[in-house]
């Protein structure tokens, strides 16, 4: 790793700090913003996320090698961390740091996109069920019951293993489409409770049509728990992806994802522990940050504290 790479990493860290400070400044005027940052882990968590996102976006700047590049299979395989290879090299003499950074693109991307798919589906299904109630609700919720009765991991394994060569995009879609059942229940419960509130009755009394009632009055007030569950859900998806990759059924191998980096390093644990340790640490750190942000958001967006 050369001087420029180190500088770029430093720059990413500084940028992440700036992001934290900026978010803090912008939300400081609102009580919810202050409640968020009162959590001791909230600011470090935002920093961790901002740092990993920055590094992932600026991957070519902060890494010395391409993720697939085998530096020197004869002399530089399983090399421990050094100034050249800060996180060591793997059995194929690839730079672990470079793979970790490019892996962040895949792992974070899968987490974010799959969650987006899941949340969108969940909000639509839950919102429709909760607003229209009666047979629409009953039918959709029985569907959700079935979805929840199939262990997610199991379902994914089946689909992925039985269809040969699942492309990454399909994998992401599959993860998302198996993850909305819980969200839809949550949204439905929220919608059911919000639609009984008096401001919704007031809007109807004023002659607002259903669309306006749903999008302006019901959903914005049901958003808090959805946002929280989305933050926690990204972490879950990342762990799921890691698990799938670990079983050899996730992101197809040479592409670096944190999950298959662990899987690749796993057999060499005794010889080159850094291969599996660092990606595992990265996942833990990011998931931990997401969980911390979720916890802080839960407090910050709690509507009971809004009126206090």
């Amino acid at each position, binding site marked *: 790793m050369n001087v420029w790479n180190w500088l770029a990493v430093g720059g990413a860290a500084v940028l992440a700090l700036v992001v934290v400070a900026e978010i803090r400044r912008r939300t400081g005027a609102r*009580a919810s913003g*202050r*409640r968020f940052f*009162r959590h001791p882990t909230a600011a470090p968590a935002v920093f961790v996320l901002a740092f990993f996102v920055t590094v992932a976006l600026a991957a070519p700047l902060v890494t010395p090698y391409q993720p697939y590049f085998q530096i020197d299979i004869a002399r530089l395989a399983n090399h421990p961390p050094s100034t050249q290879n800060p996180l060591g090299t793997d059995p194929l003499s690839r730079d672990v740091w470079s793979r970790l950074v490019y892996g962040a693109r895949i792992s974070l991307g899968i987490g974010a996109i799959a969650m987006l798919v899941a949340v969108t589906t969940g909000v639509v299904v839950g919102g429709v069920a909760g607003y229209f109630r009666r047979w629409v609700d009953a039918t959709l919720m029985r569907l959700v019951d079935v979805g929840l009765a199939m262990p997610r991991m199991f379902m994914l394994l089946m689909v992925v293993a039985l269809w040969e060569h699942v492309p990454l995009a399909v994998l992401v879609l599959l993860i998302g489409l198996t993850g909305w059942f819980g969200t839809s229940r949550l949204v439905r419960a929220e919608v059911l409770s919000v639609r009984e509130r008096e401001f919704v009755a007031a809007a109807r009394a004023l002659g607002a049509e259903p669309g306006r009632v749903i999008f302006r009055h019901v959903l914005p007030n049901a958003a808090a728990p959805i946002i929280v569950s989305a933050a926690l859900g990204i972490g879950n998806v990342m762990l799921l992806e890691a698990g799938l990759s670990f079983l050899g059924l996730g992101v197809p191998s040479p592409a670096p994802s944190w999950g298959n980096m662990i899987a690749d390093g796993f057999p060499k644990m005794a010889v080159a522990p850094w291969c599996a340790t660092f990606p595992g640490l990265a996942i833990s750190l990011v998931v931990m940050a997401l969980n911390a942000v979720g916890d802080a958001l839960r407090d910050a967006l709690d509507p009971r*504290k809004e009126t*206090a």
Partner: protein
Amino acid sequence: MTEPLLRVRDLKTYFVTEHGSGTARAVDGVSFDLHAGETLGLVGESGCGKTVTSLSVLRLIPEPPGHIRPGSFIEFAGRNLLTLAPRELRAIRGNQIAMIFQEPMTSLNPVFTVGYQIAEAAIVHQRLSRRAARTRAIEMLKLVGIPDPAQGVDHYPHQMSGGMRQRVMIAMALVCHPKVLIADEPTTALDVTIQAQILELLERLQAELGMAIMLITHDLGVVAGSADRVVVMYAGQVVEQAPTPELFARPLHPYTEGLLASVPRLDAPPARARGRLHGIPGQVPAASDWPGGCRFHPRCPYAWDRCRDEEPPLLDAGAGEPGTHTVRCWLLTEPQRRTARAPLP
């Protein structure tokens, strides 16, 4: 006059506000006495500090964010409750001083039978056996007028109506025959016909058991019917204090006067029944931002320079013995400034 049972002096209970930047002086230098066997009414609108005062007596303020300032003094049976060790304080809670609360639904634990909840204080304080405790619980249910107490003892709170639950709360509070009962808005959540039942019950129990009652309420009607003496609170302070007939006949503080003029009255003569109410303009300020000088001056129709600059002490209104009727208002020094009130804008 005999020694008071409960003597509160200069009680200050402050709260750290939500973002930790300010201090809400919810109760700010409150003093009053409660005598054995009497009913003391504590009146005021929400945010005036009456509930915090009542919770402070048994040190039930959540800490943090709240704390009772050093220098405050609550004397009961010769001891300062604010400096007691937790163990000694527990021996008084529920045993010598008991409390009932506004919401009989949420104040009862949903997962225990009402019999168990009533008997629990007796089990803890008097080391009653399970069997004796159950018998006691049934006796208490009979005392508070629950039909079929032998069955009711095994019911859960959700199986009862609001009025019945409040009766259970009262039974629970009185199980150890306390000397003082603090009733914090005991009828606010109830319908008027049920409120009448509960007030009558409290009256009867006081005659039978002889405890002193501190009745906290915002309803002047309830105070007029039940209390012997009234303490009026505004902005964390006592602003007027007098025997009930005296206070209603001669309200001296402009706040008390305004409160009385705000309520539409069932006993109003038909000529006065409709028309405008002479209330108080504005609203209670935030506890973190009491106005300087007299705290009521921004809403007071008589305020002049002195009210803005100088905080009045509790002045004696000169009715009967000193201290019988006290008022925190400069008008007592310049009575000619009291003029006819205009109706609210």
